[in-house]
């Protein structure tokens, strides 16, 4: 519905303003500054990284040695290493779990917001905004302090209020699974506000008349929710889910900071931190980054095509 509106407007505009050709060139002029900047600071490094991934490029080359072409050597090195596959698997699992949990909680919050009175809704919204606005590094330090093994309040609550006495002094980030649990809690805590607000605003756009008409026609609340509300907010849900998957797959800061807090790096690496750890072997880093991009496209490509076809972009 909303997606087709600009096309119509444009047709009208062309009737009103016949000087089409001159404007056409001007359009590209509007795009030039953004395109140049993205081309220089994103496009060029991307191409370079891609080229380097087919070369032998390490510390020596950084100091002027010419880089040697090695073909697919870097890729075969990486893809024959079982550890790389472990990390790829972990990253996909981490991304899917985090995106799913974030979406579920976020949508639940949005539906909740649409069904409560103003005071409690404002309370929830302010709380979410506080979580959303807090800088990542500030949140990370607070969460480290909350999960601190010795003086952290979480261990204290678990051992004193819930009787789990062996949680006193428990170190959360040593064990990989509990490391990922902590990371998931933090990532979900930070990501839910965006999903909740987007979906809530989407819910508000469902026209009341449609709902009343359906109610008069005898549709139950459940039917109305699944047959009217959900299809109408679907564009928002698709785009939010897509962004969430993209963001959660390339998660770096949370993992990196938790690792610096004393977690075993090798057991907790995800793709982002693994690439970062190849800082001295540019060619491997470049090849792994390319692999990561390909996986992201594979995870989301089908979805993006569908969105393009349905004109939701």
């Amino acid at each position: 519905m909303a997606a087709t509106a600009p096309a119509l407007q444009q047709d009208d505009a062309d009737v009103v303003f016949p000087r089409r050709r001159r404007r056409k060139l001007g359009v590209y002029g509007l795009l030039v500054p953004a395109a140049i900047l993205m081309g220089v600071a994103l496009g060029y490094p991307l191409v370079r990284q891609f080229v380097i991934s087919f070369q032998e490029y390490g510390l020596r080359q950084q100091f002027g040695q010419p880089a040697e072409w090695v073909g697919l050597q870097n890729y075969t090195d990486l893809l024959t290493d079982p550890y790389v596959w472990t990390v790829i698997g972990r990253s996909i699992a981490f991304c899917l779990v985090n995106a799913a949990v974030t979406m579920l909680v976020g949508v639940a919050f949005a539906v909740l917001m649409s069904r409560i009175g103003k005071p409690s809704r404002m309370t929830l919204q302010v709380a979410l905004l506080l979580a959303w606005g807090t800088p990542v590094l500030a949140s990370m330090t607070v969460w480290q302090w909350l999960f601190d093994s010795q003086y952290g309040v979480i261990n204290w609550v678990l051992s004193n209020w819930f009787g789990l006495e062996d949680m006193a002094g428990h170190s959360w980030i040593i064990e990989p699974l509990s490391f990922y649990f902590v990371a998931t809690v933090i990532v979900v805590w930070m990501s839910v506000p965006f999903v909740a607000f987007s979906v809530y605003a989407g819910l508000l756009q469902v026209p009341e008349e449609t709902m009343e008409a359906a109610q008069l026609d005898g549709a139950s609340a459940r039917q109305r929710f699944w047959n009217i509300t959900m299809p109408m907010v679907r564009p928002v849900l698709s785009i939010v889910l897509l962004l969430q998957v993209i963001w959660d797959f390339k998660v770096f800061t949370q993992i990196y900071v938790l690792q610096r807090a004393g977690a075993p790096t090798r057991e907790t690496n995800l793709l982002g931190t693994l690439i970062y750890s190849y800082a001295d072997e540019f060619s491997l880093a470049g090849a792994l980054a390319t692999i990561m991009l390909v996986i992201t496209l594979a995870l989301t490509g089908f979805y993006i095509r569908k969105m393009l076809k349905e004109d939701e972009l």
Partner: protein
Amino acid sequence: MSAVTTPAPTTLDPRPRKPTRSSEAGRAQSKVGRRALGVLAVVLAAMWVFPIYWMINSAFLPVNKLQTPEPTFFPAGGTLSNFRRVLDDPTFWAAMRISLAVVVVVLVAALLFAFLAALAVSRFRFRGRKGFILTILVVQMIPAEGLFISQYQMLDGWNLVNKVAGLSLVYTAAILPFTIWMLRGFVAGVPIELEEAGMVDGLSRTAAFFRITFPLLAPGLVAAGVYGFLQAWNEYTLALVVMTDPAQRTLPLWLQGLVESNRATDWGVVMAGSALIAIPVIVFFLFVQNKMTSGLVAGAVKG
């Protein structure tokens, strides 16, 4: 655009009810249900806000109250010494200056360039339009960690490592895609008929745009500005790579340094540092939140 504060549609009532039966009992029942959900919402809000409360609480507590077997839940009899230690630290102010400089440069550049590009993709049909939009989406998938090295080398080649200009350049490029995405929803949301009406009344196309459409885009620009501000103020990883000189640290790098030198010794100072970085952002954020969320959604749903 104040979608967030509009009263919720009451027709979304959860319980199945026959439409004809609008009895007192049903209404009372729905009122009780609403109240229960309201209580649930407040409980969830408390859970969500707890880490931030804990940050502020701990920032006011001296070490001997933080490192006790029993946590102190209220900063009664608290101290300002943690804050004082941060504010007396010249490295904090140095990092603050760097961060502010980066934010200003990034905001001006990103808003201007994104605005022009958003105008192009939402007001005109042209060859390559869909390709451009798709590129903007795909660019957000690029694993930034993979680009660091070539970005670093590029900046190094131009002598821009450890410079505000260098960091601002890569930040602006990183922020542009989403900013364009967001603004294009806002531009599309202003009906072109308004501009046309202005032109019929004798305004030139440019004048019609600046007198009619531009003021209506203000909320969108504010939303995009908030997004850019948050990104540039909060970003950690790129800064870690580009600003290697400790004298050129941004605030997040400074905070991580503070954590690593105080871990397990003084969480109070660390929390005071976190709060001092977070509070300006949060205040700013609460102030403009309406525009922010409706902007995100406008960007997501409008073409």
